[in-house]
Every structure is written in C-alpha cells, then in structure tokens.
C-alpha cells in the first residue's frame, strides 16, 4: 500500500492521540485510595462509555477488552485495507490457537479464554480445525506449528512453538509494508524476549540445545552465538554493552541478580520499545503512526491493568509506580 493511503488515517490518529491517557491521569489512578476510585478516573476519558457496563471494579478486564475491541475495529474501518491491523492482530489468532490446543489436550472447554472479534481468523474456525485435527485451512506456519503440537503434546513447548511461528509470521508479514520502523519493531521485540528467555533457561540450568529451541528467530542479536549458558551474567551485560539494549540489560540484569525476578527487566524492555515507537511522531504519512497508536493503546491497557491489579490487591502506591510504564503522549 502506498504511503499516501495512510494520510487520512494519520490525521485521525493525531486527534485520537490527544485522548490517550497522559501521565497526570495515570498518576491520579495510581494514587487513588482504592480500586473503585481509580476506575472513576477513567470516567473522564474515552473509556467512559465502557464503564456503565461494569458493576464492580473487579471486573475492570471487561473494560479493557471492550476498549481493545473498539480500537481494533475503529482502526480497521479507517484504513482502505485492514492488512496493517491484521499484522498486529495475528497474536490473537495464535493466542486462541494456544487456548484451543491446550483445552483439546485436557479435554476441557475453555472458550472464555478466547479473544473474539480481534484476530484475523474467527475463533469458530479454529475450534473446527482443532476438533477435526485438520489445519489445512490455516496459514502455513500456523498450521505447521499446530500439527507439531498435536503430534507431540508437551505443555511446556506449546507456547514456545506457537510463539516461534507467530514471530516468524510477523517478521515475514512486516516486510510487506516496506517500513524499517515496523520491521525493526518486531526485531527488537524478539531480541528483548530472547534475552529474557536466555535468563530463564540459564536459571533453570537447561541445556544449550533447549535454549536453541526456546529462542525466537534473532532480530539483531544472535544470543546463541554471542554467549554460552555457563558464562556469568556479568558477561552477558558486558557483551551487550555496545548494543542498543545496553541500558535495558545492565539495569535489568542487575536488578534480576538482586531480586531474582524479571519485573524490572520487563518494565525496562517495555519502556525501550515505547521509546522506539515514539519515533513515529515525526512521520506525516505512512503506516508508522497508525502502528504506533495501536501499540501505545496496548501499553495504556497494560498500565491500567497494572494499576487495577495493584489497587485490588492493596499494594502501596510506590510499588504500583515502580511497575508503571512510560506513556506515549
């Protein structure tokens, strides 16, 4: 699609961006005395329409689901072709497939976990495919991964295999937009995920062969080549000190060594990606601002979730703040 075809959408996006939650609103939510008060802040935002349908603050997930559906639908409608939104919606198809494959194996029905109205394949079609064990109607990578899972079900590997297929699909599909921004986004995301996988595999003291099967296709970093699992964590930080991920890794890994959790690393990685997508603010046309808006919205949904989980579990404000991500606007 020519970049000209995004001009209208980018104009709308620039208006829509003004309605994203800013730091002020996020802070007020984080500082609210309880979950219900935190949710009230959303009443002044574009989430207001969904608030009426929710009885208690514990049902905040309904609001997030409704808002996500609204955003995907709105973006699909404003573009002449839905392919850009479908790229980002691919994760929901894979999510649904994971749910169905696991449920099928356990002979249970877990349809409440399915994401409806978001993905590119209706969940009903996936249900039919999984029940019949016939994946020929699915896209090739998805079908291949699903067949692999059906042939040899391993609860640990279901997510790994399907994520690998998802990220391979994303890398291949992203090329169609001829946008280094979109390709780099997924490449950096794979690298940051791979670093996390590396830390986990190292902690579990699994074999290098397992590491090789657990990693996503490399973005800019080939971790297997770069580092052995036996090497101390300091070496990982050292090796990555010249890469774009230096800051994320040095602070994130240091914190991981002290706390044994990846919470800080995940926050830093999210902030790194958010900082990267801010580049899209300088584009006057093209798919980049639309993609960035969608990702900014996902980031916002994640922040509301962090705050609401924190409020419902009565975490102190400081602990919630520590987990909060940067904002796009």
């Amino acid at each position, binding site marked *: 699609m020519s970049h000209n075809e995004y*001009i*209208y959408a*980018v*104009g*709308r996006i*620039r*208006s829509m961006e003004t309605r994203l939650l800013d730091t002020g609103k996020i802070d007020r939510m984080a500082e609210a005395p309880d979950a219900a008060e935190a949710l009230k802040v959303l009443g002044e935002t574009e989430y207001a329409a969904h608030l009426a349908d929710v009885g208690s603050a514990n049902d905040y997930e309904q609001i997030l689901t409704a808002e996500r559906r609204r955003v995907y639908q709105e973006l699909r409608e404003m573009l002449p072709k839905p392919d850009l939104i479908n790229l980002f919606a691919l994760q929901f198809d894979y999510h649904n497939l994971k749910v169905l494959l696991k449920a099928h194996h356990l002979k249970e029905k877990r349809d409440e976990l399915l994401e409806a109205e978001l993905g590119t394949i209706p969940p009903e079609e996936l249900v039919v495919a999984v029940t019949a064990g016939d994946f020929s109607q699915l896209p090739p990578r998805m079908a291949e991964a699903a067949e692999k899972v059906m042939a040899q079900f391993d609860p640990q590997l279901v997510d790994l295999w399907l994520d690998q297929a998802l990220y391979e699909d994303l890398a291949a599909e992203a090329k169609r937009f001829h946008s280094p921004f979109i390709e780099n986004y997924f490449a950096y995301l794979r690298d940051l995920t791979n670093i996390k996988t590396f830390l986990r595999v190292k902690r579990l003291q699994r074999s290098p062969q397992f590491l090789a099967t657990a990693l996503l296709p490399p973005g800019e970093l080939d971790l297997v080549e770069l580092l052995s699992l036996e090497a101390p964590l300091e070496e990982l930080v050292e090796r990555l000190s010249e890469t774009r991920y230096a800051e994320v890794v040095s602070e994130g890994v240091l914190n991981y060594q002290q706390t044994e959790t990846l919470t800080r690393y995940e926050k830093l990685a999210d902030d790194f990606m958010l900082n990267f997508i801010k580049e899209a603010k300088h584009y006057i*046309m093209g798919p980049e601002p639309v993609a960035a808006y969608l990702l900014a919205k996902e980031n916002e949904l994640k922040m509301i979730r962090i705050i609401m989980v924190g409020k419902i579990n009565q975490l102190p404000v400081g602990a919630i703040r520590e987990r909060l991500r940067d904002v796009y606007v």
Partner: protein
Amino acid sequence: MLGMGTGILLAIFGAALAVLLAGIGSAISVGRVGQAAAGVVSEDPDKFGSVLILQALPGTQGIYGLLVGFLILQRTGLIGGAPAALSLEQGLAFFFAGLPIAIGGMVSAFAQGKTAISGVHLVAKRPEESGKAIIFAVMVETYAVLALLMSILMLFGIQV
C-alpha cells in the same frame, strides 16, 4: 493557426509547462493536505476553519503557473488572436521564462504540502497553535513567489 513558426510553438510549450507542472504540484498537495484535514475534522469538526487555510496554501503555485502561462500567451499575442512572428531565439526565451514557476512551483507545492500536513497534525494536537502551523507552511510560499517573480521579470524582459 496552421503555419505557425517553431518560435511561437516553443512559447506555447513554455506556457503549457508553467500551468501543468505547477498545477500538478498544487493538485497533489492540496489533495494530500485535504485527506489529513478530513482525518482531523472527522474526530473534531471544530477544527475545520484552521485546517482549511492549511489545505488552501499549496494551491497558490497552480495559480502562479496559470498567471505566467496567461502572461506568455498575452505577450506573444496568442490571446489577442494575432500571434507574433517569433524567432526561434525569442520562442526559446519565452519557454525558459516559464520554467522557474513550472519547476519551482511544483517542487515548492510538494514541500508546502508536507509542511501543511504537519501543520494539520499540529492543529489536531494543539488547536491554540494553529497560527504557528500556518506560518510554517507560509514560509515555503517564499520560494514559489521568488520563482513567480523570476518568471515575470524574464517575460517582460523579452523583446517581441
């Protein structure tokens, strides 16, 4: 009109280019800014006024091109119905006189279109700064005006 000399044909070619190229630049740019403006107005109809001015700005080059084309036709007598018997050199001179606004107009229209789209986005974010958005786009106008000025000076310098 049969039996026209090469000179007058070159002058007509110059007039055609001035209107065509500057007009293409303006048409495409006004179209693009209009798309961005429609995007903003669909979210916030109150911004129609400021984005409309931004949309109109890259349209001036097309008008300048028309003016130069018109002047060439007038100077060479084509409008009066009595075309002057131009020499090859005179015809070429009229052709060259059309070029500054043809090319300068087209390129500045594209540049102004992009600035105006950025301006439309600025208005979407900060409606109170619409004056600044317009000024940024108007800055590009300078170069369209300079091209027009040069085309006119050349036109009136040619002896017929």
